[in-house]
């Protein structure tokens, strides 16, 4: 099996073992996964299942110890050098000494875009995440939800086709989270990006994704991959439909199966 041109990410027999003081820990073992262009894939599982590690391997923040992985047909390192993806962390990680505008411009400065182009892109992406009018504010003058939106804008600013999101809304309250989920879906529909989304919330995963990857710990592995039958257009109240609940149920079952041997 060779990866097709339209495969954005393709992992085969991927494994990663950390050497710790308590002996080796298998964070990932035998992960086989292919993600196509334009997909919205969620990774869900209990802590220690390797979902964040997998995302970090894609981003070349960790090196796999076995197996292969390609991003846009390249190694993760080459993809990183080509700035192939935007990464959104658990916290907004905005620099407190820069205004929102200059935070979003940060990757553009590093990648050497001209001043005028920086301004144009910053305005465009801030509009995309509904932060127009907050350009001159400092991060600490904004709410948590707005900060996370700014960090998404920062990841979008340089027009990478792949967006890696590591529990981006984990620290926010439920109401803000619903709102941001809805906005993220709209953004995805408008930009046609490929999104990898790590979460530990079942409703969030089901609501957002076209595909849900269920993982389990010790060793971190994929236990189930669920194709979503929900339409691309998803109002918030779709979460009360029987179809939604059925998928959620299957995810929960998958999580339980991977978890059964402990407690």
């Amino acid at each position: 099996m060779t990866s097709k041109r339209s495969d954005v990410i393709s992992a085969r027999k991927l494994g990663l073992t950390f050497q710790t003081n308590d002996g080796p820990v298998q964070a990932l073992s035998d992960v086989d996964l292919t993600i196509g262009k334009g997909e919205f894939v969620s990774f869900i599982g209990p802590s220690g299942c390797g979902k964040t590690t997998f995302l970090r391997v894609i981003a070349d923040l960790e090196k796999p110890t076995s197996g292969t992985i390609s991003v846009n047909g390249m190694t993760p390192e080459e993809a990183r050098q080509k700035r192939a993806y935007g990464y959104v962390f658990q916290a907004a990680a905005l620099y407190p000494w820069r205004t929102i505008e200059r935070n979003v411009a940060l990757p553009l400065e590093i990648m050497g875009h001209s001043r005028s182009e920086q301004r144009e892109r910053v305005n465009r992406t801030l509009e995309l995440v509904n932060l127009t009018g907050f350009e001159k504010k400092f991060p600490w003058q904004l709410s948590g939800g707005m900060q996370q939106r700014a960090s998404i804008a920062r990841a979008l600013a340089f027009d990478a086709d792949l967006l890696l999101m590591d529990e981006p809304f984990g620290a926010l309250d439920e109401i803000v989270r619903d709102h941001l989920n809805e906005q993220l879906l709209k953004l995805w529909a408008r930009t046609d990006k490929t999104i990898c989304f790590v979460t530990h919330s079942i409703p969030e995963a089901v609501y957002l994704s076209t595909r849900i990857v269920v993982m389990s710990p010790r060793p971190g592995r994929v236990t189930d991959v669920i194709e979503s039958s929900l339409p691309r257009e998803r109002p918030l109240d779709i979460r009360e439909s029987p179809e939604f609940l059925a998928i959620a149920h299957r995810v929960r079952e998958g999580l339980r199966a991977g978890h059964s041997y402990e407690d």
Partner: protein
Amino acid sequence: MRMLRPSWQAVAALVCCLVAFALPGMSTLELEARANPAAVIDYPFMGTGGLVVGLLVLGALASMIRLSVWGEAVILLFAAHFAAWLLLTGIMGYEGSALAPFFLLIAAGWLLVWRLVVVLSGIRTTNRSLEWTLRLVIPAIFGAWLLIIWEAATRGFGIPFILLPPPSSIGVRIASSLPVLAADVRQTIFKSVLIGYVLGCGAGFAVAILADRVDFLRRGLLPIGNMVSALPIIGVAPIMVMWFGFDWHSKAAVVVIMTFFPMLVNTVTGLAASGAMERDLMRTYASSYWQTLFKLRLPAAAPFIFNALKINSTLALIGAIVAEFFGTPVVGMGFRISTEVGRMNIDMVWAEIAVAAIAGSVFYGVVALIERAATFWHPSVRGG
């Protein structure tokens, strides 16, 4: 009783005033004059003794009437300071003749000021400028009374001038020797301290960046730097004087050595202070070492670097002054202190120390202001 708001400070002040009033005289000279009514003996507080007691008593009583806080504050401020002024000007020229009533009245004034500080400290306000005024006024009153008590004690007890001169004569000395003081400041601050400070901090910073690039160097230099910070580095002063001569070069060299290590240790620590997430972010941008350094790690290290700059501002001054004890041309703050001590011109020593204190505070204040402007985003600054 609803009209009254008693305070123990005011009551104690009243007691002091009454005892002072009951005792026969404010000074030995006054007793002498009373004993020989025929002789013409000048004595202090000829007409003002009663006025002082009256002021303090009225102030103490009025402060206990249930007035507004500001009314009470103004009464206390006026009564205590007017009385203190009368007492201090009265004793001038009659040093050493004061008796218990004089000190009791000073104590009464001090008690009223204590009450004043308590009242002012209790004011709750949301007005920012008023809050700031209070923050300045309260310690200013405290400082003023430190000087008043110093003045009263030295003049009242007649403490020998060479032991502890009163603040007023130190002030006179400063005013009369401005050219000398200015020359000393020029030599010590503008040559030794500033040049040494810039070179020392710059070298410490440069080596810290180097140590940051070479991990082996960092792991070796950090423990050494931490240990050296605890050593009495000032002891290299005589060696530097031998190497670089008597002029400012040797003092600047001492300052360089003293400021180098705090800067090195703080910068290295600061460069490690940026978060793992922020550094991962730069990695996802495939950012180069220097881009990460300038856009992330140096700004994140700024609070640490400024901390070193502030510590060093004091160290530099100490280094330069103490190094001058080991030999200088005939100008410089340390030189002046050591020679005037030898000549027992203690008021000149105090004048020089006052100038050093002001210079130190200004130096520190300037660095702190730049810090506020540069690290406006840091929680410790923006929290107010």
